[in-house]
């Protein structure tokens, strides 16, 4: 608890406010991230959970401004990072932040390293991009980095090519590249999804160690609640581009409030229960084009849906201290008189 209060004193490192990211389909823009606000404090690990297609990855790409040009754009809202507005930056300005202050790890280690360059070259590239450093120093530093991510024989691996490494090793290399300039924020977009379970655990362990050693914040995007429980301080549950629940990790697992979160929890296989069939959530996330405009977006799949769920849009609001939910089952989520929808309080 003392750690928690300590954290709350710090000013947030990253503050996302009312972010709307839209994608163009047939000339029209549809919101993939819809009015999302959250903040990341220094040394905090924030998990973002949700099904495929709920806007987790789009949000991380928005922060790094890596949205595909001409298709995706930040429509409104602000992304505040250490006193600067990322969303207003030119490509040139943001290039000095990418890799240095904010780094990213991707889902697919098999394709996220360039096949024609040696491992060492790819680590040194980020060093050369952001630091004045000699070739020799860069090489020594890249060997040290490989060692710090738990790669044995780093002097040899540094000269090898991606096709000679296994998936787990490549992900370690990706982590080495990401932490090369000691970023303040690391965005890990499903870093363990493509790895097998034993390697997953190692990589998560490594990420946690590195986070502690380097004093950095991490945004961990995942669809695996087990990973969240293992790693995170704060959790954000997203559905169809909106935050449906936001709280700290203990509260979420002991007292999930949103029906969607509860269903997600039910879909985790458990060792201590004798269940033959895993429960699943019926239906799929509606596509961007078919997104309901009014009402709760989860209503169509929600077992606890009420008639008014399709006509009143719930707002994200605090039900208990530090626990925000967006669901009409909770009176705090009902919009106030005169406020129709999409208003974020606080």
């Amino acid at each position, binding site marked *: 608890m003392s750690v928690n209060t300590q954290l709350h004193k710090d000013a947030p490192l990253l503050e996302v406010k009312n972010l709307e990211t839209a994608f163009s389909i047939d000339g029209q823009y549809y919101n993939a991230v819809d009015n999302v606000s959250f903040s990341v404090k220094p040394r905090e690990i924030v998990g973002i959970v949700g099904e495929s297609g709920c806007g987790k990855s789009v949000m991380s790409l928005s922060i790094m401004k*890596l949205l595909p*040009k001409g298709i995706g754009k930040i429509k409104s809202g602000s992304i505040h990072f250490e006193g600067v507005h990322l969303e207003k930056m030119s490509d040139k300005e943001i*290039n000095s932040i990418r890799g240095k202050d904010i*780094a990213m790890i991707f889902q697919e280690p098999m394709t996220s390293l*360039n096949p*024609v360059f040696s491992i060492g070259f790819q680590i040194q*590239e980020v060093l050369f*991009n952001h630091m004045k450093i000699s070739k020799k120093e860069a090489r020594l530093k890249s060997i040290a980095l490989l060692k710090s991510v738990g790669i044995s024989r780093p002097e040899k691996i540094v000269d090898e*090519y991606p096709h000679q490494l296994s998936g787990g090793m490549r992900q370690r290399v990706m982590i080495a590249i990401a932490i090369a300039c000691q970023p303040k924020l690391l965005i890990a977009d499903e870093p363990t999804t493509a790895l097998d379970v034993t390697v997953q655990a190692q990589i998560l362990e490594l990420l946690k160690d590195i986070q502690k050693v380097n004093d950095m914040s991490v945004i961990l995007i995942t669809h695996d609640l087990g990973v969240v429980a293992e790693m995170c301080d704060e959790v954000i549950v997203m559905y169809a581009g909106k935050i449906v629940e936001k709280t700290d990790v203990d509260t979420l697992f002991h007292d999930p409030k949103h029906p969607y979160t509860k269903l997600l929890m039910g879909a985790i296989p458990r060792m201590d229960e004798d269940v033959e069939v895993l429960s699943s959530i019926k239906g799929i996330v509606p596509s961007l084009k078919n997104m309901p405009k009014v009402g709760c977006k989860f209503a169509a799949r929600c077992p606890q849906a009420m008639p008014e769920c399709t006509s009143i849009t719930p707002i994200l609001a605090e039900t208990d201290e530090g626990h925000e939910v967006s669901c009409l089952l909770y009176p705090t989520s009902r919009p106030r008189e005169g406020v129709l929808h999409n208003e974020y309080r606080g």
Partner: protein
Amino acid sequence: MEPVTQATSAAVGSVIKPPKSQSPWALARRKFFKNKIAMISLVFLIIVTLLSIFAEPLTIPVEETAKINLTQMSKEPSAEHFFGTDKSGRDVFARTLHGGQTSLLLAFSITIAVITIGSIVGATAGFFGGWVDNALMRFTDFMMNFPFLLFVIVLKSIFLESSTATLIFVISVLSWTGTARLVRSKVMAEKENEYILSAISIGCSPFKTITKHLLPNVMSTIIVQATLTLAVMIVAETGLSFLGFGVPMNIPSWGNMLQEARSPDVLTSKWWIWIPPAAVLTGTILSINFIGEGFKDAFNPKSNR
């Protein structure tokens, strides 16, 4: 255990170099060198190229190849004239070598120009997409619309002082479109890979991302395309010269030499006038195509040849 193995490997290493980590390039190179047909073709092409480059010290200066010598008309091959002489009494051997110089220089220059323009246009269009892509590709379509042969003839007549340089310019301007389309499609497929995204995410500028990360990965396609273009350009030069729209008549080229075979008399009874350039031409084009195939195999990780 460890120090022992290290010591042995060091001992072995001093005799035989330990296998260095193989980059995809090194792997492809090794595979290419193992390809017999491609290697024979490469040797042939190098010999032809060297003979053409050293045409002057080996035979006679280029001005003399155009000189008409009435006393030596249509002589059969002999010790004095290895390949005999043509109807104007010019030495066919010297003309074949000098002709090779013209034809190869033309083909290499056009290929370099075509690949450069095509790669720049294709990579830019493919990487940026959107309106940049649209504008560049519509321009490419526009350039593609010109009928090649007619346009070359028209442009050649506009540039009155026709020279080899004009021909290089005209053909280059008309031929880069195919390469641009190919490179664009390859770049579009390649940029979806996450290493491009991760290159951008560590702060690489678009220029650096294209030149350093994207181009090396589409280079195999570009190299194969370049070899095939080279063969096509030799044929184009020969075809145009054969028709009389190519290299000026006073400069020997394989196409100009083959033009002589248009007369039935030469074709039927004076074989030595047209067989040498035709044979070298065919051999060169074949070997270039075999080299191209060899590259294609070498760059393809799935082929085991």
